C-alpha cells in the first residue's frame, strides 16, 4: 500500500465519519462541528489531488466563514423545541433512496473508463490566467451574484424586523 493511498483512506474515514455525524447527531451544534471536520477532510482530499489553491479556499471559506455564520444563526434561533431535533417519518424510504443512489454511482464509477493513472498539478499562474481570461465573464457574474445575495439577505432580515 502506497503512502498516498494510506493518506486517502484516513481522509476518507474523516470525511465520511464527519458526514455521518452531521446526519445522525441529535445536537445541532455538534452537527455543525462535525460538518467542519468533514469539510477539512475534503480540503485534505483537495491537497491529495494537487489542488493547493482550492484546499486553501476550502479552509478559509468553510472553516472561517460558513461554520461561524451557521453557529451564529443556531444561537439566534435557539429554541427549546426538541421536536425539530428529531428526524421525520421518511427515514426508511430516504435510506433506500440514498443507498440506491450510492449503488448506481459506484457501479457507474467502477464500470466506466478509468482513464490514466497520473495526477498532474495545475500551476497557480495557469489557474489565475484561465480565471481572468477564458472565464472572465462568468467570474464577474459570480461577483454580481454575491452582491445580490448580500443585499437580498439584508433586505429579508430587515423585513421581519418591521412587522
Amino acid at each position, binding site marked *: 500500500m502506497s503512502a498516498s493511498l494510506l493518506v486517502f483512506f484516513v481522509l476518507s474515514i474523516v470525511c465520511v465519519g464527519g458526514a455521518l455525524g452531521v446526519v445522525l447527531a441529535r445536537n*445541532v451544534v455538534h452537527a455543525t462541528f462535525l460538518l467542519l471536520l468533514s469539510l477539512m477532510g475534503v480540503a485534505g482530499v483537495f491537497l491529495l*489531488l494537487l489542488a493547493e489553491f482550492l484546499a486553501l479556499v476550502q479552509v478559509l471559506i468553510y472553516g472561517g466563514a460558513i461554520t461561524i455564520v451557521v453557529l451564529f444563526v443556531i444561537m439566534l*434561533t435557539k429554541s427549546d423545541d426538541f421536536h425539530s431535533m428529531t428526524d421525520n417519518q421518511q427515514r426508511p424510504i430516504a435510506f433506500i433512496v440514498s443507498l440506491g443512489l450510492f449503488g448506481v*454511482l459506484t457501479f457507474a464509477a467502477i464500470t466506466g473508463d478509468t482513464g490514466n493513472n497520473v495526477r498532474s498539478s495545475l500551476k497557480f499562474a495557469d489557474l489565475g490566467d484561465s480565471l481572468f481570461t477564458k472565464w472572465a465573464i462568468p467570474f464577474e457574474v459570480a461577483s454580481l451574484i454575491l452582491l445580490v445575495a448580500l443585499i437580498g439577505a439584508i433586505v429579508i432580515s430587515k423585513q421581519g424586523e418591521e412587522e
Partner: protein
Amino acid sequence: MTLVYFQILSAALFSIGLYGVLVRRSAVLILLCIELMLNAVNINLIAFSAYSEPIVATGQVIAIFVITIAAAEVGLALAIIINLFRNKGSVDIDEVDLMKW
C-alpha cells in the same frame, strides 16, 4: 491510486447528504447537508481536472464558482431561517407548509 477512489468517496458524501436532506427536520441541518452535497460535487470536479491528460483548469475554475454560489446560498438561506424563526418561533421545516397545497 486511480480516479475511481475519489469518485466513490464523492458518491458516498453525496448520498449521505441526500439522506440528511430527506430526513432532517431542522432547517439549519438541511442547509448543512446541502453543503455536504456541494462538497461531494467539488471533489468530483477537481478529481476529473487532476486526472485529465493535458491538464485543464476548467474543473478547478468551476469548483471555485461552486464555492462562491455555496457562500451566497448560505447567506440567503440563513436570512430566510432567521425571518422564519421570528414569524413562527421555530425552524421546524414540517411546520412550514403554507405554500404546499
